[in-house]
């Protein structure tokens, strides 16, 4: 869906290449009061429908607002998700709230030109990328890396433990042949009698 929307936005952008930049070029009569704000062009229906407009400025505003607001929403959801996993993101959260406030103030600004509108909303998006999205990705990557390192460490420790066990077994003194041990314990006679086929109960009686 994102690819389809990007393609749609791109083609719409190309169509606007020859249009004048300043809104006054076509809307001199309506913009005399300077009361048209970005907020008055905020989302009110599917963006594909809203960009069916005759005015390239309205199309651009709808696209820019869609891209900016959806990114703000997506990032706030991502932050909450990370916080639910126990990651502490207070700074990023504060940064996102500040940028949300800036978005609100931009909505109150009058619309003057296509490039000005794109620059202010595009600037906000790039700040969102730099101050929130990039640190969030870095954090995600660091966590993935950490879990890999942890897994490798556990495997390594397991291997070391197994190797140590094996080594210790090899280090323990070779066991003496049974007859010698029994002789040292004074039980060799019992073995010999047993091997000679004496009844078991007698054997038991001896012990």
């Amino acid at each position, binding site marked *: *869906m994102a690819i389809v929307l990007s393609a749609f936005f791109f083609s719409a952008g190309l169509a606007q*290449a020859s249009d004048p930049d300043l809104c006054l070029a076509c809307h*001199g009569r309506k913009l005399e009061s300077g009361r048209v704000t970005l907020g008055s062009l905020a989302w*009110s229906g599917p963006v594909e429908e*809203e960009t*069916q407009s005759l005015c390239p400025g309205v199309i651009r505003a709808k696209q820019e607002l869609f891209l900016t607001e959806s990114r703000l929403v997506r990032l706030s959801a991502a932050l909450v998700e990370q916080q639910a996993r126990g990651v502490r993101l207070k700074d990023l959260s504060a940064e996102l709230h*500040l940028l949300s*406030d800036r*978005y609100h103030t931009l909505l109150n600004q009058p619309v003057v030109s296509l490039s000005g509108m794109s620059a202010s909303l595009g600037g906000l998006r790039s700040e969102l990328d730099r101050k929130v999205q990039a640190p969030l990705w870095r954090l995600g990557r660091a966590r993935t890396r950490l879990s890999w390192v942890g897994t490798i460490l556990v495997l390594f420790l397991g291997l070391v433990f197994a190797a140590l066990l094996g080594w210790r077994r090899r280090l323990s003194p070779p066991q003496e042949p049974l007859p010698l041990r029994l002789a040292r314990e004074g039980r060799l006679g019992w073995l010999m009698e047993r091997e000679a086929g004496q009844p078991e109960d007698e054997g038991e009686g001896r012990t």
Partner: protein
Amino acid sequence: MRRLIFYLVLCALLAAGCGEGPQTASRDKAPDLARERSSALLVSLKARQSRVVALCQLAAKAAPAFPELAREYLDLALNTAQSLADPQTRDQVEKASQRALAQKTDEPKHEIAEIDQLSRAAWPLALVARSALVVNLELAAKALELGLERARSNPDPQARDRDLAEIAMVMGRSQAPRARRLAAGIISDQIRARAWRGLAELTRQPQDLSEAVRADQLIAEPGTGALSLTQTARQAYDWNPEQGLRLFRQAFAMAGKVASSKRRALLQAEVAEALARLDAKAGFDLARKVDPEQGVRFKPLHTVAKVLLASDPILGRQVMDAAIREAQKLPLSYERHRALAGLAADLALTDQPAAMALLEQLPGSEYLLRADAEAAMVLAQAAKNVKLAAVAAQAIGDGYVRLGVLARLADIAMPIDPAMGRGLYRQVLSEAARMGTILPGRALIRAWAALDAETAIRLAGDVSQPVARAQTLVILAKFLHESGKKAGAEWSLQLALEAIKMINVQETLDKVRLLGDMGREWSVIKAGQARRYFALGAEAAKDLG
């Protein structure tokens, strides 16, 4: 030996690298210079257009109190607009075009086409004429003639028609028959329709609107035709609802001729929505005929429901349920949630449980989308119990909206319970200072001024962005002046001027706008000071280009 060979190879590589730099630079030097000249010309032309806009806006603000200043600014604006196509600039444009033709890539050619159109644009002259109609008719007539001449000599048919339409819409104020002849000569059907609509608005003559309809019907692409006819229908509805309805239905039928089913549905929904704003029931009839494809009907149904909730609550509620069903069909989760939040905000006044149920479908993390609905619910509650509303307001996730709502609750509480009102104002101020946020202007200014003018000015001076800071300080100054705190007002204005000086070059239009606002506001208080603000604005405008 090996080390020696290594160092020798390294030295050779370094020498090769050093030697290549200047060679490459000298090879690229000629095209780069040409490119730089074109870019400088482009920037200069854009800046001159902005200067015309800034001076015209300044003149409009100065005209009621200082007509002589307005005339001076318009003279300057006219000179600037003329300079866009003076022989020297045209010569530069010609040279740049020749250089671009010699290049093989399309990029500079595109830039040159833009430069060419900027220098041929006649709308700045139309803008000067429009602004001068109030203070200097002679200058207006001169600007119109120059504009007409320039527009007619433009070889780009689209740009020429666009400029002719703007000129016709200015000319219609003083020379309607001539403006009609001009509008009739516009080749593009879509632009001609726009010119006739503009003329009809000025002349209030039904035949002008009929010409607009005729032009709309000639537009070859049915989608564009439908949208253009919708605009004409909207205008016609104000004069004659029956004729307007008929035109809306024609536009809907025209949109039905679009080949792509998706686009057809989108366009028909747009037509239905435009009608719903004027006549909810007729809009509902059209909305029901739109193909139910992926929530396309949401927008018209939402508008119908909003209008009907006030006039016919039972039908309004039914349409609202249909709009909710349409919202659920939207394929993108952001849009689905945005739509549900909007519906919840509308339902907050009439059906709080239903609004809550809708909000529950949105994740808590999407505070930005939830904020308006939450604010609407709190404010609806404030009519019954301000204290409970104040408690509920603390749960609004979006800080900016929360502060705005708390300030409004404080306004409501002040006459009933001043202690509570002041407490809320205090909370708003401390929270705003703690968050270091850009403050929602007017609402907070009341809070500051109600508590302490000095704190108010200090906090307004702490707003980080210069444009927002200046704007806040200007409003605060006016408020303080009206409350009799003249010293505070002066101080606030001084800080506003400091903030304006810090506005960067890219925002010069904002700078001029703010100085113009200051001049207009102060023209009734202190004429000398107001003149100074206008003069500063004109200086800033001159810096453009």
